């Protein structure tokens, strides 16, 4: 095969001109996937991802209570549980036993307190305690699993009948890998990321790494930082004290070793939009599927969620989109 012919064929391929459509038409299929997501999400005014650098800092708790705070203000809210291998949102919202039903329009989300719509891997599992298990022998391949989980999230975005929403909150999987920021790229017109942290230096260090990645590499705006379990309010006397007093740093943060997340926020130009005190009733609420903010609307943590919602509404959510 002579070089002229090869270069002509390459040129044709690049221009898309003379090349016959490949039968598999990968680009066409990917284009369709993107278009389906775009179309479904075009009826959702705002989308925000809830992220954390570390697992177990209260990301899901913040997601549901914040979602309910918005709903209390009359917003139509949805939650996408993007934690595919460890979904927790449905149980926390009391819709754990619910099934996802497939209609010609798409899959119907579960509807929880205050009309919050929920889509999660959990709603597709055969039983309440069924672990997420995939067919095939490639379960252990991180590349394969990663690709599949992205595909599942794409389908949860595109195929769930979200209807008209003011706000979709996406509970990201823990960022031990750099998966969450990449997932964020799947979502067109993402308004930004809400970062959740707890006041230990390790957690802050990891948050800073994912913040840097999100901001610099993926150009996702940061809505703000929420400091969870910042303080402890004594249920007996109402006295407020710091929860994490001096901690031993496991990871040496670059530069200063003595940052509070307030300083972290300031140094990176990220606003701290609120702090949530520790309240021992929070995990009991989650276990019972009765969200904290519904059960204890006057608790200090609930008022914090409301005030954070107010700030986000003020700064990010166009009031005209409210119905």
């Amino acid at each position: 095969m002579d070089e002229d012919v090869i270069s002509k064929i390459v040129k044709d391929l690049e221009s898309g001109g003379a090349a016959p459509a490949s039968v598999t038409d990968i680009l066409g299929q990917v284009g369709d996937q993107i278009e389906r997501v775009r179309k479904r999400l075009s009826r959702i005014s705002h989308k925000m991802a809830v992220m954390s650098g570390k697992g177990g800092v209260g990301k899901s708790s913040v997601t549901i209570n914040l979602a309910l705070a918005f709903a209390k203000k009359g917003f139509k809210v949805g939650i996408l549980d993007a934690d595919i291998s460890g979904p927790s949102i449905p149980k926390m919202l009391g819709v754990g036993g619910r099934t996802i039903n497939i209609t010609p329009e798409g899959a119907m989300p579960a509807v929880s307190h205050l009309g919050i719509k929920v889509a999660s891997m959990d709603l597709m599992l055969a039983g309440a305690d069924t672990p997420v298990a995939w067919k095939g022998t490639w379960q252990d391949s991180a590349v394969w699993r990663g690709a599949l989980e992205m595909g599942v999230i794409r389908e949860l975005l595109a195929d769930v009948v979200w209807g008209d929403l003011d706000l979709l909150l996406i509970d990201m999987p823990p960022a031990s890998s750099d998966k969450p920021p990449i997932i964020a790229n799947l979502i067109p017109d993402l308004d930004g990321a809400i970062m959740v942290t707890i006041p230990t230096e390790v957690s802050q260090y990891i948050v800073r790494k994912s913040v840097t990645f999100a901001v610099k590499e993926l150009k996702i705006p940061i809505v703000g930082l929420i400091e969870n379990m910042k303080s402890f309010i004594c249920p007996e006397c109402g006295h407020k004290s710091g929860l994490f007093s001096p901690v031993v740093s496991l990871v040496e943060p670059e530069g200063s070793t003595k940052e509070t997340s307030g300083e972290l926020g300031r140094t990176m130009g990220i606003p701290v939009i609120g702090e949530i005190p520790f309240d021992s009733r929070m995990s009991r609420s989650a276990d019972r599927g009765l969200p904290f903010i519904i059960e204890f609307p006057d608790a200090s943590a609930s008022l914090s969620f409301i005030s954070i919602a107010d700030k986000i509404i003020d700064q990010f959510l166009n009031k005209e989109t409210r119905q």
Partner: protein
Amino acid sequence: MKFICMKCNDFMDYEDQEKVADQRLGLVFSCKKCSSSFAMVTNSGETQLVHALGIQIGGRSGPAQPLELTRDSLKEDVKSVGPIWTEEAEKRILNVPSFARQMARKGIEDYAREKGSREINGKIMDEYREKVGM
């Protein structure tokens, strides 16, 4: 990816696919000019990776079905055949104490199925409540 017939200097066409063995696909390409053809066999990893991306080898035969990738990929069957809950019904079931809610859901769904109803609405819930004396 394109294949080129080296004799004719032209693109080859994708012709067919067949399952050679479990999770192995044979993809057949042929040249329309000289009608020579060859087959490419994928290994199970390649087949699955392409599947995981939601791409159907050989192109789609119809529009994508809701959650088809997820449902195809899960080991256990998806609970997708249950009746559809109206928003009113969804709200009402939240009033059932959480420890009993899962049972109540199942009871109502079973009842609806018995009645041949595809939808769980206020009426079905009333009937069910009457029946079990809740």
